[in-house]
């Protein structure tokens, strides 16, 4: 496993696209978060906005870039046929998948941390000027605040779990375009279906099992009672999706001819 991990890490770091994708993810997350914070206005006060959640809006878009990174870690090898060399070098295929997951974890966590800190910083600077700040009765966005810490740390974990989900999906589906379509469809479309379910119970249940809505419950710092699912339980739901995708991918990887 150590050798395999060393190999996968080398693969990842020797592709320029890894660096650019992570940079793009950080830039997009911070930029979209800042834009969302700048777009909120609450002149009269009393809005039910959640400052931390607004400041982390960029995660919604940034996760797509992280998903691409994870999908390409597998599909890039299937696309070129290099997967055969990888599986020749490491015939224990589940080890390969585990090594890929482990190799992705560091960069994603690092990029996620930078992006989240940048977003919270931007939100903390921008929001008070738009009527959502300590002088308007809102809690200051401070990482030392327990709920803000949870939102920020949870967002980083969210990105990591999205990466694992994408890795599993790509291993199962192999083709890059199909895999990224499936992942983004799962993330982005289920919440829309929940809106149209036309039935409050069903909508709520869908929001509880949809990886994006459930997972992003971790970003909430106010109005926790109105969430479809509690923050950590929501992240668990996403973790279950990621685990399911990895298990499915692993089983298929083991049973299929390469």
């Amino acid at each position, binding site marked *: 496993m150590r050798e395999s991990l060393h190999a996968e890490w080398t693969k990842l770091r020797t592709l320029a696209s890894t660096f650019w994708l992570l940079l793009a993810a950080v830039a997009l997350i911070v930029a979209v978060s800042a*834009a*969302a914070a700048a*777009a*909120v*206005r*609450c002149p009269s006060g009393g*809005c*039910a*906005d959640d400052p931390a*959640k*607004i400041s982390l*809006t960029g995660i*919604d*878009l940034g996760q*797509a*870039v992280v*998903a*691409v990174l994870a*999908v*390409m870690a597998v*599909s890039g090898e299937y*696309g070129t046929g290099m997967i055969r060399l990888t599986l020749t070098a490491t015939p224990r295929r589940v080890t390969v998948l585990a090594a890929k997951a482990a190799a992705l974890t560091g960069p994603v966590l690092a990029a996620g941390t930078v992006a989240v800190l940048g977003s919270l910083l931007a939100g903390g600077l921008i929001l008070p000027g738009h009527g959502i700040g300590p002088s308007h009765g809102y809690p200051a966005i401070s990482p030392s605040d327990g709920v803000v810490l949870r939102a920020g740390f949870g967002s980083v974990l969210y990105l990591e779990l999205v990466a694992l989900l994408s890795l599993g999906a790509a291993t199962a589906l192999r*083709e*890059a*375009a*199909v*895999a*990224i*379509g*499936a992942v*983004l*469809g799962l993330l*982005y*479309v289920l*919440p*829309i*279906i*929940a*809106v*149209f*379910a*036309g*039935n*409050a*119970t*069903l909508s709520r249940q869908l929001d509880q099992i949809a990886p*994006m*809505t459930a997972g*992003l419950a971790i970003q909430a710092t106010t109005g926790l009672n109105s969430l479809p699912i509690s923050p950590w339980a929501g992240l668990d739901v996403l973790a279950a999706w990621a685990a399911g995708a990895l298990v499915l991918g692993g089983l298929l990887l083991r049973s299929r001819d390469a």
Partner: protein
Amino acid sequence: MTAITSSRPPASPGRAGFTHLLHAEWTKFRTVRGWVLSVIVAVLVTVLLGLFIGSHSHVAPCTTGPNGPACRYVIPTGPGGESVTDTFYFVHRTLTGDGSITAEVTSLTEVAESSQTLNGRPARTKPAVVPWSKAGLIITAGAGQGSAYAAVMVTGSHGTRMQWNYTGDTPGLAGRVSPASPRWLRLSRAGDVITGYDSAGGTNWTKIGTITLPRLALTVQAGLFATSPGGRQQTSQGVASASGTAAATDATATFDRVGLHGGWPASSWTGTPVNGGPDSPYVTGHEAGYRGERGGFTVTGSGDMAPDVTDGVAIDGLLAGLFIALVAVLVAGAQFMTAEYRRGLIRATLAASPRRGRALAAKAIVLGAVTFAAGLAGAAAAVVIGIPLLRASGNPVYPATALTEVRLIAGTAALVAVFAVFSLAVGTIVRHGAGAVTVAITGVILPYLLTAGISVLPAGAADWVLRVTPAAGFAIRQVIPAYPQVAANYTPSSDFFPLAPWAGLAVTCAWAALAMALAAYLLHRRDA
């Protein structure tokens, strides 16, 4: 040296050549099992989800009990066929034939009911400003819900208005009524024609409007009314979901010097609360009634006479499967081009059609036609079968004209096709399957998700996103128009879009055209 002569017939760049290209591209598409499968799955998902939503949809009140009131409630329709709210307090007499009624309104005040005790009486009321509270004179064809009517009125913040048949609205004098600044109103009937006037002092009268109520009965009810729509409390700038709490409000108007001319048979004034009965989901206040003394009246009412845009189920919800279908279509659309790059097939394609723009055009036409046909089949089945299912499961379905249904179905199909072509163009520009699919999905579906789905963006920003991104085309889904005279949560999450349906589709088409132009340019410039 021997000269090499081409055995090819003289170049046929004309229509025949392009037909061959189309045939070639169609053959490419239909021989890739994954693409055909994804189109079939897209159609099936759209239909099945439509049927599921049709049979499992329940508006909120239904969930409070096994067979809650709203499940039996049928939203009344006005003379124009649209869903309406027809709830107000009516102080009326019979008018036979031609005649007119005049009154001076000296005040209009509103209160909001903040909480209720067990017996249903408001425990506390507080003064409020309800912009569209209304009080004035009305001639109505009958007491039935959705009856034809015409009225002149003062309003909370929108000055004097003449309104008729729920959707009609014309402004008169501006300014809020008060004892210091009263408003004189007059409504006169001559046959089918009703004319409304207003005046600041009762001497100089201005005609606000003349409207015709076709086939108006000889005997109608006419008199004074007051009503005040329930204020939806906007809990956040980030748009609250449709379950925003509706607080009832009551409007009280003081009428003076009520004068009648013409065919008013001898009778007395009668006060009637006009409403949809106990099953109506419309939240009304508890203070309705009137007092009459010395030719003047004080009338208190709650409700609205306006199109209903909040209590029913819109048929576009049946097309939720569209979004899943779109993912499949966007993937297939991008791959239609990127697969050629990955396998080097593009060289054969461009060798067969050296005029590269034509090869791209042929691909776009084939893809557009296939996805339009698939979208049409899926949307038509979902809507046509889904509407009766929605009704059968007790939902108050907003009526939609046949034209609206056709627009929804054909527009959705067109939207799918345009998105597919957009994805094809992105695939040509990016030349990388995963990259193209990511750009297409985040460009098309993510803006809609952020504005309408989980609505994280504030309303103003959401409107802009839905004006300028490719997701603007989703406006084609809007089946209930937004009315300026009805205060409601006109947000994308309630299926109200900042652009008109066809304008939104035009924005998406512009994106697709732009992407196609860039794709054609790059295809031409780059080495294959």
